[in-house]
C-alpha cells in the first residue's frame, strides 16, 4: 500500500483540512441544539468519529500484520506500527470524549457500556503492542512478534465486545446508552465528522510513514556510510 505514491503531494492534507473545517462548522454552528442535553451533545459527533477511526486503525494494523507475516516485514511493519500509534491517539480521544458525554448525559464519568469498555480493551491492546515492540531486543524479530500480537488483538476485540455486551445484560446498568434521534442535519454532521476524521487518520498515517522512512534511511546511512542502501 504505497500511500505516498497513490495520493500525490499535499492533496490529501489539503482535502483533509478542508473536510475538518467543514465538519467543525457543521458541528458548532449548523447542527441544531439538542433538546435534552444542550450544546454538550455536540461532542457526540467527534466521539463517534474518533471511536470509528480508532477501530479502523486496528483493521489496518491487522491487515498490515498479516502481510508482514506472509510477505515479510519491509513496509508492512512500518504501516502496522504507524497505524497502532495513530489508532491509540484516536481511541484515547474516543474514550475521553465518551467519558465527558457520560458525565453530561448521566452524571457519571464511566459506565460499563460495552462499546466504551471494549474501547478500553482496545486501548490496552494498542498500548501493549507498543510496549511489546519496545521490549523486544532483537531487531530482526521485532516485526514478526509484534505482527502476531496485532493479529491476536484484532481477533480478540469482537469477541470481547460480545462478552462484555452479554455481561452487561447480567449487570444491567441503570443508565442505558440511549440512541439519539438524529434529524437529517445531525446525520449530515455526523457523516461529515466521520469522513473528516478518517481523512485525518490517513493524513497522519502518511506523515508517520514518511517519518518512518526517513528514520530507516538515517539508520542505514549510519551503519554503512557512503554505502549502498
Amino acid at each position, binding site marked *: 500500500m504505497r500511500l505516498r505514491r497513490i495520493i500525490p503531494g499535499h492533496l490529501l492534507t489539503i482535502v483533509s483540512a478542508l473536510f475538518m473545517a467543514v465538519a467543525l462548522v457543521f458541528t458548532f454552528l449548523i447542527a441544531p441544539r439538542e433538546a435534552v442535553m444542550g450544546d454538550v451533545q455536540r461532542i457526540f459527533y467527534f466521539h463517534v468519529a474518533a471511536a470509528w477511526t480508532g477501530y479502523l486503525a486496528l483493521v489496518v494494523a491487522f491487515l498490515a500484520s498479516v502481510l508482514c507475516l506472509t510477505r515479510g516485514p519491509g513496509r508492512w511493519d512500518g504501516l502496522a506500527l504507524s497505524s497502532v500509534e495513530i489508532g491509540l491517539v484516536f481511541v484515547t480521544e474516543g474514550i475521553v470524549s465518551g467519558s465527558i458525554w457520560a458525565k453530561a448525559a448521566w452524571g457519571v464519568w464511566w459506565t460499563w457500556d460495552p462499546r466504551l469498555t471494549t474501547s478500553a480493551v482496545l486501548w490496552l491492546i494498542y498500548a501493549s503492542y507498543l510496549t511489546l515492540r519496545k*521490549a*523486544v531486543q532483537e531487531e530482526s*524479530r521485532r516485526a514478526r512478534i509484534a505482527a*502476531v500480537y496485532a493479529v*491476536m*488483538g484484532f*481477533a480478540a476485540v469482537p469477541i*470481547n465486545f*460480545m*462478552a462484555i455486551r452479554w455481561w452487561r445484560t447480567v449487570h444491567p446498568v441503570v443508565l442505558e446508552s440511549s440512541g439519539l434521534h438524529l434529524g437529517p442535519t445531525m446525520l449530515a454532521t455526523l457523516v461529515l465528522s466521520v469522513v473528516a476524521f478518517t481523512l485525518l487518520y490517513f493524513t497522519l498515517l502518511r506523515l508517520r510513514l514518511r517519518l518512518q522512512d526517513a528514520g530507516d534511511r538515517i539508520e542505514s546511512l549510519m551503519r554503512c556510510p557512503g554505502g549502498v542502501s
Partner: protein
Amino acid sequence: MQSLRGLWAIVRKDLALERRSQEAVSSMFIFGLLVILVFSFSLDLRAESAVQAAPGVLWVAFTFAGMLGLSRSFIRERDQGCLDGLLLCPVDRSVIYFGKLVSNLVFMFVCEAIILPLFVALFNLPFRPALLAVVVLGTLGFAAVGTLFSALTVHTRAREVMLPVLLFPVVMPVIIAAVRLTAGLLDGSPWAEIMQWMRLLVGFDVIFLALCYMCFEYVVEE
C-alpha cells in the same frame, strides 16, 4: 504417528523436569491460595456476599497462578538454550506448540484440582460436577493463548511482566465467560440462562486454538 510421538515426548520431558525441580506447580499452587486468602480478607466476605464474589475470586486465583506457570514454560527452554534443541528436531512447529500447551494444561489442572475443593470448602459452596467442564474449557482457552504469548515474550526484556500485559486484554472473554458460568452454576441458574456463555467459551477456545496454532511458527522462526 511421529507427530503424536513428538508431542508426547515433549510432555513427558516437561513432566520429568517438573518432577525433579517442582518449581512450577508448587509456586503456582501457593500463589493461587494466597490470592484467595488476600481476597477473602480484603473483600471481607461474609456468607451472603461470599457467593457473589466467589466465582471472580476463584478465576483471579486460577489466572494469576496460571500466569506464573505459563511464563516459565518457554523461558526455561530459552535459558538452557534448549529452544534451539527443540527447533532442530524434525517435527512440525505446531507439535512443539501443542506439546507445550499440553504440559501447561497438566500443570494448571494439577493446581486447580487442589485449589478448587479447598475453595469450595472455604466458602461453603455447593459443588456441581458441571463446574469441572467450565474449569477445563476456561483453562484451555487461557493456556492456548498463554502458551503462544509465552513463546512470544521469550525474546523480550522484562518477560514476566510482559506476559500478563499482553495476555489479559486478549483472554478477557474467557475470564468473563468462566466467571459467569461458575456463578450461574453455583447459584443454580437454569441452563438456558447461562448457555450463551458456554457457547462463547467454546467458540473462543476453537477460534484461538486455531489462530495460535497458525501463528506459532512465525513466532519461533528466525
